[in-house]
């Protein structure tokens, strides 16, 4: 795309963050694949193995999240997810029009503000809306055997819980599709993915300042 402006390399994604992202990505994909098999959409591993793998992945992701939440707060990275209205419309306009005309990206990524306003909003929605739906229904689903003891069976049916869990899965599927596509919208098609692998991204150097690898 536009290479007129000088580029500089910045260190955006720290090692733990990259590990978290890719591990989470793999787990989410495994859970989608096994989840829809459990749902009955197709026959791949067989129901029993699909359930085992789905459950194992769920616990692994929960453990990963436990570390990640700790990491977010100790590093202050959680602030990256605070939503902002600034440039939100500009971002939407860019994806709808500017991206085709070669207009400059309206958002300038820095190590302290690595997510554009649309990303922040999307990730927050994932965290605050889709996650509770999936994890709430998923854990209820998993611990179905204990409903009687907890008195939950008077209020819940497996059908309701399964339906909500499936709805969450479809939301996650739509997110994954959009998310994977949007990785191609960097200054080159694979720039974002490369950044998520190496940690380093190239941004326009319109306000030169020293960039050092944060410790």
């Amino acid at each position, binding site marked *: 795309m536009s290479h007129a402006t000088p580029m500089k390399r910045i260190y955006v994604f720290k090692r733990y963050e990259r590990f978290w992202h890719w591990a989470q990505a793999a787990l989410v994909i495994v859970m989608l694949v096994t989840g829809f098999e459990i749902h*009955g959409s197709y*026959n791949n591993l067989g129901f029993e193995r699909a359930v085992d793998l789905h459950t194992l992945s769920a616990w692994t992701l929960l453990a990963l999240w436990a570390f990640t939440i700790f990491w977010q707060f100790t590093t202050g990275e959680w602030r990256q997810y605070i939503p902002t209205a600034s440039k939100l419309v500009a971002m939407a306009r860019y994806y709808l029009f500017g*991206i085709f005309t070669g207009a400059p990206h309206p958002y300038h990524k820095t190590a302290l503000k690595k997510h554009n306003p649309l990303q922040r909003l999307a990730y927050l929605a994932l965290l605050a809306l889709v996650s509770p739906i999936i994890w709430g229904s998923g854990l209820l689903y998993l611990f179905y*055997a204990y409903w009687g003891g907890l008195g939950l069976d008077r209020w819940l049916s497996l059908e309701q819980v399964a339906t909500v869990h*499936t709805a969450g*899965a479809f939301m996650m*599927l*739509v997110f994954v599709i959009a998310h994977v596509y949007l990785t191609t919208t960097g200054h080159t098609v694979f720039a974002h993915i490369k950044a998520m692998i190496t940690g380093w991204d190239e941004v326009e150097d319109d306000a030169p300042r020293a960039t050092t690898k944060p410790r």
Partner: protein
Amino acid sequence: MHKIARRMAAALALCVATTAGMAIAATDTGAKSRSTADHSKFEELAGPFDSGEAVTRACLKCHTEASHQIMQTRHWTWEYANPATGQRLGKKTMVNAFCIGDQSNEPFCQSCHIGYGWKDKHFDFSDGNKVDCLACHNTGEYAKPFGFAGNPVTVRSEYPPGSGKFVEPIDLAKIAQAVGRTRRDNCGACHYYGGGGDGVKHGDLDSSLNTATHELDVHMNKDGLNFSCSDCHVSDQHAVAGSRISMTATDPHPALLRGEKSERNPAACQACHGDKPHKESLLAAERLNAHTDSLACQSCHIPAFARGGVSTKMAWDWSQAGQLTAEGKPFQKKDDHGHVIYDSKKGSFVHGQNVTPAYQWFNGEVTYTLQDDTIDPTTRVPINVFHGAPGAPNARIWPVKVFHGRQPYDTERKTLLVPNVAVPGDTAFWYNFDWPKALAAGAEATGAPYSGKYGFVDTQMLWPITHMVAPKEKAVGCQECHADGGRLAGIEGVYLPGRDRSVWLDRLGWLAALAALLGVTLHAIARVITHLRKED
């Protein structure tokens, strides 16, 4: 007709010999008797005995209460008033879809009565000397041939009379001196052979259990636990626990402790295993144990019945019976496996081995269509109905054998009919192939009114599947039910992941995913096109 009778007699003699042979061939546990008495040292049993009753009189000298105990049980009375339904049941009067009914056929059928001499309705049920101790306590060589009203044969006898065929006598003293605890082949001598042959009725009970492998039945495995029937069907004062006439369909309790006093049925799986028997990994979160809230143990642990190499009858069409050869003789047809698929005496059959059971909700309550019940001949008549509402807390999903019959009924009175078939004589169907005579004689014996007009009606009979418990590795896999069109297709009252899903949510969800995919694809194409234009 006389020639036919001779052939029948030959077939019968073979049948008897086979049955007796089974009893002899059956394996003993091999273990030494645990009894504190050696019956061969008892003077009372020195013999010789000229009848079964003489043996019983000797038994009762020491076992003073045994006959009184037996006479309280269904094994003796063949009668049972079901307290739950009020129906008067029991083999004495019930109709089934196999040999149909006992009445008028007693001298033949009562080979499986634990008494001596029940040949008609005048049998004295209060005579304790007529109790047959040996039927259940012999350790081999005992036989009660068909046609002798439950009596063993002590003098060489011609049967049927005038046929020139003889039944050889047995030595009752020798048998009496060797008595012991009940073994599998004692129970099996009748319970395997119900319906006229090995494995015919139940599907989960046949002579293969006498020498069961681990694969066939984990409890009866001859090289393993080697259970006798009475290890589960525990008896108390000769009353044996467990019956298909009224069943224990649910038992949501932990295992009984040895010696624990309980009203629970000791024959139920849960009596030993408890209702949450699966040791599961933390990952499984008690998933299998939760299944016991809706499934009977048998549903997963008996993946198929008739697994021991003996086939079971799945269908029996009496309306085809009576076809004769050009010479007027009865005949048999066999399939490639040697199973009789047609017999002039009985009609046509369908056999099954390794049969996948059908499944249905069952709360233990069974009602029967009895002789005086009005039937609807326009539909398949249920000989018995297993009750239980889908999802009800007192019901579980049970495996059953669904047997299809076609049998005679009174077309005017709309009642099932009992034919006289097996006792040599002018009216018996097996000897004269004359339905009107056979049905009139049957009706006379039952006392039921009969219009004289008969036809054949489709019937169905259910059998609970509860024996032939497979090793746990061979239990029914998750996917056999958690799938479209699986074993539990059509079973209501449970949400079954993999089988059940919200159709509208699926449509909406896949539509959303498709829309997202389409959206990004169009976006990508637009990007490529505008990019190429700029390059120009």
